[in-house]
């Protein structure tokens, strides 16, 4: 589970997530401190604190501070429901951490209780590898979220992003970073003085495809996050850009300009088959994104004069225009529900915002309020859209819920942050 052969990210590359807007009437919940039944020293930040922070960040919960808890049960029989009703919480999470079998890693036992009915909603034990306690806490958060909200959580996930550090007047340092979804544990995957962009997660979360200018020209590289191996998978003359994995992880749709202008091509992830050209048009055709079932590819094209989003069969046939509202719609990102398409949208030339195109109603809704918002990426559960924005002259990341009610800002202490990509659920 742990990432190997990566460097810790440069100082200042760690994201801190701030809530800008939450929902009215977020659910009151208490996550009591977990008992520590282990021979190993207890971590500085408790499992309960990680779970509380996750739930709070979702904008849907209002977790109680641990120092306001007058009771600290760790097993269901110890719970005095009256006390928690008096404290006005609806749900309670309790548990304990013990050593794993043969002393390898840990086991997290946890229970979710309905304070009003006294019922136990969840009772589970989870084995985690050594060093993966935080990730275990994210999985508990996912289970609690799913039990109470009805859709899977996306806490046990990672995000990839690019940090640009300035080195003096002229030079820059590009760093491709992978961190846990809560911003912790940032690891640099690649560093270079030349631009890095468009990271894309493989469907199993084990590899990242990205665009590198390390040779002075654009190339597409696949980096394995567990073995540390990397391989150039496209270095044709002209642009090699915009990698997007097929849902089965076997192919990537990419933009290549070997024909003189960018077209969408399909290339084999292992390099076994010849690249196949899907679009044949003199315009710019780029930013492909597969539908979750792999049947369609959404992409950006300016064949009608300005960039708009189109869809075609994965074979390249039946190209149809999807977006009509606004002068500029590009960079589609598809939610797993196959209904929402996040895009970069503009009505004029100056304000570029994140919008959602609803495939059912065919309507477009603007979600962000920046001037240079770009690179939308859906959380694997479709709850939030992560994107890049500019704030006080710096590149930052931001997230907005698909209904626009919850807003977060993800800030680093230094550097320009951009090109976020949310991983699939990591199992």
């Amino acid at each position, binding site marked *: 589970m742990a990432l190997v052969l990566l460097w810790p990210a440069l100082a200042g590359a760690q994201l801190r997530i701030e809530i800008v807007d939450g929902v009215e009437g977020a659910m009151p919940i208490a996550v009591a401190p977990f008992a520590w039944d282990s021979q190993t020293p207890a971590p500085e930040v408790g499992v309960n604190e990680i779970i509380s922070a996750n739930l709070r960040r979702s904008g849907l919960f209002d977790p109680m501070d641990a120092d306001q808890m007058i009771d600290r049960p760790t097993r269901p029989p110890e719970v005095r429901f009256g006390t928690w009703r008096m404290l006005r919480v609806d749900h309670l999470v309790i548990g304990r951490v013990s050593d794993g079998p043969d002393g390898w890693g840990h086991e997290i036992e946890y229970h979710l209780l309905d304070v009003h009915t006294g019922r136990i909603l969840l009772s589970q034990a989870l084995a985690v590898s050594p060093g993966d306690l935080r990730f275990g806490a994210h999985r508990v958060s996912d289970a609690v979220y799913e039990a109470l909200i009805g859709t899977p959580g996306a806490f046990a996930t990672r995000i990839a992003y690019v940090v640009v550090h300035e080195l003096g007047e002229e030079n820059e340092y590009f760093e491709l970073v992978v961190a846990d979804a809560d911003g912790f544990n940032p690891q640099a995957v690649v560093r270079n003085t030349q631009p890095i962009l468009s990271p894309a997660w493989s469907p199993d979360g084990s590899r990242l495809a990205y665009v590198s200018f390390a040779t002075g020209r654009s190339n597409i590289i696949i980096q394995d996050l567990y073995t540390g191996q990397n391989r150039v998978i496209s270095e044709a003359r*002209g642009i090699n*850009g915009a990698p997007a994995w097929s849902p089965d992880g076997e192919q990537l749709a990419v933009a290549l300009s070997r024909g003189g*202008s960018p077209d969408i091509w399909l290339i084999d992830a292992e390099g076994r088959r010849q690249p196949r050209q899907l679009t044949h048009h003199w315009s710019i055709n780029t930013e492909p994104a597969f539908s979750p079932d792999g049947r369609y590819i959404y992409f*950006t094209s*300016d064949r009608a004069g300005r960039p708009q989003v189109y869809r075609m069969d994965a074979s390249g046939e039946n190209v149809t225009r999807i977006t009509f509202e606004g002068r500029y719609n590009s960079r589609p990102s598809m939610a797993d529900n196959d209904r929402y398409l996040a895009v970069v949208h*503009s009505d004029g030339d100056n304000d*570029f915002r994140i919008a959602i195109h609803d495939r059912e109603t065919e309507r477009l809704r603007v979600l962000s309020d920046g001037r240079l918002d770009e690179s939308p990426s859906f959380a694997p559960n479709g709850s939030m859209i992560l994107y890049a924005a500019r704030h006080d002259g710096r590149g930052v990341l931001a997230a907005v819920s698909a209904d626009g009610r919850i807003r977060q800002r993800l800030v680093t202490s230094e550097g320009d942050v951009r090109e976020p990509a949310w991983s699939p659920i990591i199992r």
Partner: protein
Amino acid sequence: MKTAMRFMALVLLAALVAACAREVTPEPAPPEPTPPPERERPVETDRLDPRDFTDVRNLDNPDSLLNQRVIYFEFDRSNVRAEFRPIIEAHAAYLQANSSARVILEGHTDERGSREYNLGLGERRGNSVQELLGAHGVSSRQIEVVSYGEERPVCRASNEDCWQRNRRTEIVYTAR
């Protein structure tokens, strides 16, 4: 004849460089300057002609169009404006006269809009310059277009002033 003139010019340039070098030495100048040598031609023909676009020295001559290597574009456009055509024509003349010279045309955009789309737009700007060079007889073997999109701005503020400086194609000589 042309070669001979160029050789003369080089000799004179070398003499000039030597003279300059002598000036900066702490040694006092000789009291009596040597009289200027007899001239066979008027001065003008000995000097570097900034309009001689076949001459490698004009690549570094601030008075020559060959020294200008950035073509600017309108927002979301890739057509070369009339005012930049003479620069491209000058480089076309140089590349034709010097068949071993090579250029990379770096296409760039401002920061607005999505990055991968901007890679396409930057390439289009590089291609426009390439087409003009080609129309003036430059071999495609001498030219490569590389788009950086919005990844390599020369100016970082988010305003039109910066944006217009970033929307550009840079003519970069990899061999002269």
